[in-house]
């Protein structure tokens, strides 16, 4: 039910999600729901080896199988479909079907198009490949020194594809002066988003116009349209890309598009529409969707009063076999590298290495969650070493609320915040004294209770500079990240909003409805939302980097301003008053000064659409009521080429405090949540229920990362986690009820003061959970440096028998 809120009160209302109407009725339209006449189905032959040369491929038996339309090798495919786009610098070339060499298990070697997927898989089994096996390079430390066939891309020359060292602020002075320095090593293991819907595409090629039509759940369509076209060897105006409902992205579907590229390339070769839907094994082994895989040595220095004076991160990141995202996830780590704390100096030394594993892609947090984990662990390590209370230590170092906007040493700024208030709310809700008092009686029952806290920032509204600003000579220094909208008032007075970003399980339609209702003074039921394909589309970056609602709000504000002007132009003439005295209230236009006549949107629009001759000549009275607007990032600046100032690149910064209270069984060493509190400040909230959903979902994934999930490769580069039985995503049975509360500190830079909140749950959860487990084993001096903390991991780190 829509609450009865009148005029300008739709922001802040927990409206039911517009998307749910069709999804709950089973009427969503996903890529796999698209079916075209004569359509063929794709299956791919995956490499069984991590590192090998392809000597020979025999397709004859597969080609001869009845029901098979097409069989191609990578070498054949590459004649019409070029390498995948990459942000890497120098380019690390990646083909969507391997050419000459395979670099990870699961990399496709050949493709089949057949009458159905069953026969396609039968044909795949008939393809014979001769490989020359090379020793796999699995350990990132070994990869750094690898030579010969251990170098994955001989043309790049080394497996170290990026190396840079940076310092901002008085780093060496502050380290020299420090009263204490804590240094710790951390290992951040690979996890993966594993959305319920794998990557999928249906592609059709019309040879008459040399025109591709693609339906896919991958990527940000208006950005990839052009890149996909380049790889397909056509103009971007020869590709139309349709959006579908998506069963989860969590960042993973933002980047790569081998799936639509394979479908499109095969459709052209097979001369028929083609569907390619990854199965779970393909998604796990070749989805190009693993998160960060990092080895850290990190230090935090403090003065004698317990004030942080510098933080320094030494990072080695194992990107897998390719380097599509370049150093983007480290740019992201740098957006809030000093956290919510006033730390004047920052060091960041980075080595990106390649190994024989599937490559990385963005995953909710995109490196920001890793940096948050490391910094929060350092704070806990400092508290432990100096025997300070971890809450007091945080409080002592918070940036205070009158210090915003706050510039961090590398040049990014934080727009606003009130960290103390968030902390107070969280402490109130968690009631730590109560849990402390329960610890003793729990021990008698063989249970250990522990609590942990994290206070982290939630950078939002990304800027593209983070992908390249660490490069010495950036190859494609993109700076645009716009979002667009078109709003039309139909002749019946109702609004139709066209958006250009995909629905990835977030709430773009609900956001559009509420924001237009608020801005235009309309009832939500009178607003429809649809999606533009690329050929009908405006420029859009889509929902990445916790940006979509903020950017959509900006675009909607701009379009509504134009639209209002149009409405007032027509209304002023019809009411015979001046334009500037008109006001809108609940879809009714009237004069603010006279209590005379008024017009509904429906009445105005009926005239604007049908009765041109009732209005004077002139362009301002042109028929129809339609407005388009493209909104650019509200505040970014260019980085300095020598990287001593990265510029403003992630300035809309929320904040969160999570408190986890856990119980660990002494015998099983299983961790269970007794309470979980999450207080977030994401600025002005458009829909509290949707924000709570984002927070809960992010925490669920955070719990997965903290306690359950890990992508395992063995020393031969064989992937051991190829099903959802091996890769343990927590289910609803593992996720506790989460107490959620909000603080609203509006951003001074965005429409309505909204901040992004799509990643916050996962940006905050892991350090709180790790600290809670530490706390449960305080007497044993436990300090978690690696995740997931499975029972076995906990046992091995506690050395109970020693």
């Amino acid at each position: 039910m829509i609450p009865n809120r009148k005029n300008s009160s739709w922001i802040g209302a927990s409206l039911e999600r517009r998307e749910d109407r069709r999804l709950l009725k089973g009427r969503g339209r996903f890529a796999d729901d698209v079916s075209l006449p004569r359509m063929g189905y794709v299956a791919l032959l995956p490499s069984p080896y991590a590192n090998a040369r392809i000597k020979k491929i025999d397709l004859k038996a597969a080609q001869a199988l009845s029901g098979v339309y097409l069989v191609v090798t990578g070498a054949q495919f590459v004649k019409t479909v070029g390498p995948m786009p990459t942000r890497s610098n120098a380019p690390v070339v990646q083909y969507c079907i391997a050419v000459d060499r395979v670099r990870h298990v699961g990399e496709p070697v050949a493709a089949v198009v057949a009458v159905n997927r069953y026969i396609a898989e039968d044909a795949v089994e008939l393809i014979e490949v001769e490989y020359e096996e090379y020793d796999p390079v699995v350990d990132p430390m070994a990869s750094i020194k690898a030579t010969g066939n251990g170098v994955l891309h001989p043309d790049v020359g080394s497996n170290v594809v990026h190396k840079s060292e940076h310092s901002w602020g008085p780093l060496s002075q502050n380290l020299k002066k420090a009263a204490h320095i804590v240094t710790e090593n951390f290992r951040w293991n690979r996890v993966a988003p594993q959305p319920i819907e794998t990557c999928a595409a249906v592609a059709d090629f019309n040879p008459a116009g040399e025109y591709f039509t693609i339906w896919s759940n991958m990527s940000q369509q208006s950005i990839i349209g052009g890149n996909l076209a380049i790889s397909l060897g056509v103009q971007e105006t020869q590709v139309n890309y349709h959006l579908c409902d998506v069963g989860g992205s969590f960042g993973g579907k933002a980047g790569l598009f081998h799936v639509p590229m394979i479908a499109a390339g095969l459709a052209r070769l097979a001369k028929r529409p083609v569907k390619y839907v990854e199965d779970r094994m393909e998604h796990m082994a070749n989805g190009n969707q693993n998160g960060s895989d990092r080895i850290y040595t990190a230090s935090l220095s403090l003065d004698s009063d317990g004030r942080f004076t510098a933080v320094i991160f030494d990072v080695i990141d194992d990107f897998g076999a390719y380097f599509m995202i370049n150093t983007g996830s480290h740019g992201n780590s740098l957006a809030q590298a000093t956290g919510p704390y006033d730390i004047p100096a920052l060091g960041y030394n980075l080595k990106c290495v390649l190994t024989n594993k599937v490559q990385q892609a963005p995953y909710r947090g995109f490196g920001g969650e890793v940096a948050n984990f490391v910094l929060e662990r350092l704070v806990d390590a400092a508290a432990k070493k100096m025997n300070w209370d971890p809450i007091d230590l945080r409080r002592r170092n918070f940036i205070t609320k009158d210090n915003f906007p706050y510039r961090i040493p590398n040049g990014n700024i934080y727009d606003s915040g009130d960290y103390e208030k968030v902390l107070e709310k969280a402490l109130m809700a968690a009631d730590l004294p109560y849990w402390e008092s329960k610890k003793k009686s729990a021990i008698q029952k063989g249970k250990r209770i522990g609590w942990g806290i994290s206070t982290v920032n939630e950078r939002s509204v990304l800027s593209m500079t983070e992908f390249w600003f660490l490069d010495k000579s950036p190859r494609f220094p993109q700076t645009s990240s716009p979002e667009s909208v078109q709003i039309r008032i139909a002749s019946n007075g109702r609004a139709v909003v066209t958006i250009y970003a995909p629905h990835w399980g977030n709430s773009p339609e609900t956001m559009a409805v509420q924001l237009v209702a608020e801005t235009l003074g309309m009832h939500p039921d009178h607003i429809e939302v649809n999606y533009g394909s690329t050929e009908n589309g405006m420029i859009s970056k889509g929902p990445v980097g916790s940006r979509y609602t903020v950017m959509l709000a900006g675009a909607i504000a701009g379009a509504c301003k134009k639209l209002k002007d149009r409405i007032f132009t027509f209304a002023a003439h019809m009411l015979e008053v001046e334009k500037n005295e008109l006001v809108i209230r609940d879809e009714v236009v009237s004069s603010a000064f006279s209590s005379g006549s008024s017009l509904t949107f429906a009445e105005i629009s009926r005239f604007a659409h049908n009765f041109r001759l009732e209005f004077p000549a002139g362009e301002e009275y042109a028929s129809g009521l339609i407005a388009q607007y493209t909104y650019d990032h509200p505040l970014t600046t260019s980085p300095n080429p020598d990287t001593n100032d990265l510029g403003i690149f992630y300035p809309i910064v929320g904040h969160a405090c999570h408190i986890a209270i856990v119980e660990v069984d002494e015998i099983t060493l299983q961790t269970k949540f007794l309470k979980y509190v999450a207080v977030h400040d994401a600025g002005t909230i458009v829909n509290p229920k949707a924000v709570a959903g984002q927070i809960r979902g992010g925490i669920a994934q955070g719990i997965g990362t903290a306690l359950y999930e890990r992508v395992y490769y063995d020393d031969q580069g064989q992937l051991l986690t190829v099903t959802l039985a091996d890769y343990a995503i927590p289910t609803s049975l593992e996720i506790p009820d989460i107490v959620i509360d909000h603080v609203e500190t509006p951003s001074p830079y965005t429409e309505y003061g909204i901040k992004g909140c799509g990643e916050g749950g996962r940006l905050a959860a892991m350090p709180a959970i790790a600290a809670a487990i530490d706390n449960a084993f305080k007497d044993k001096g436990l300090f978690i440096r690696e995740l997931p903390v499975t029972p076995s991991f906990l046992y091995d780190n506690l050395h109970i028998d020693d």
Partner: protein
Amino acid sequence: MKPPNFQYKRPFSIDEALAIIDNCKDLDVRIIAGGQSLIPMMNFRVAVPEVLVDLGAIQGLTTIQKDSDFLYIGAMATATSVMQSDLILRNAPLIPLAYEHVAHPTIRNRGTLGGNLCHCDPASEMPMVMSVLQAKLIVASTRGVRCISAKDFFKDLYTTALEPDEILTQIRVPFASHSTRFAFEEISLRKGDYAIVGIAGSIETKQGSCKNLRIGLCGVSNVVACFDQFSDLTQGCRVENIPTEKIIERVRSQINFESTASVSAAYRKYATEGLIRRVVDRLRG
């Protein structure tokens, strides 16, 4: 993840099913019950049967009955129906106790007890539970019917005593006397996952003294594990005095704990000892 072509047969009686198997002697025939293990194996092309014989249409294979000595569970009874049966709860409470740890409702609604036993996965709870309960398995072929004790039925990893032409039709579970005590404990990473370690225990008590201690383990070794050689430790013992540590030592000495990607051998050993202690403590009352 699609299976290659296969023939699909859906007989209406055991005799018809057996006749199909007889007629397909030269082909790879697999019986399908609930399909919760076989279908994924077929989709992964790990199992590639040429003929699939579905027992789902055969009347009478799902009934759960009893007489004065035994519970009779039809091989096609689903996990859910077994788990929720009052007859079983009253007469073999270890079964529903263990089923709490088996998979999830959607899988239990389709998966059958018989299929679960024939799959013979030593990480699975039911083969071990049936061993502890000393169940008997009734199998039929055109050659006749035979009765195999659980101990002899579970041979090895994914290997039972079933001949290629035999079908498991019924599981007979001896009644638990009122003086028999049961306990079950399990650790899995997530609820419903395969056990890292699962332990079942049963012991009979008579006027305070006890006999026939049996301890079953799943998840820790490559065969269905049930230990019953404890009489020297429990002889004449009052149940509350059975020597826990010696029992643990005896079980532990017979297991070779191994590491897997996510579980170290050391933890598995520690957890196994801890759970046996819990199970024995529970049996002691």
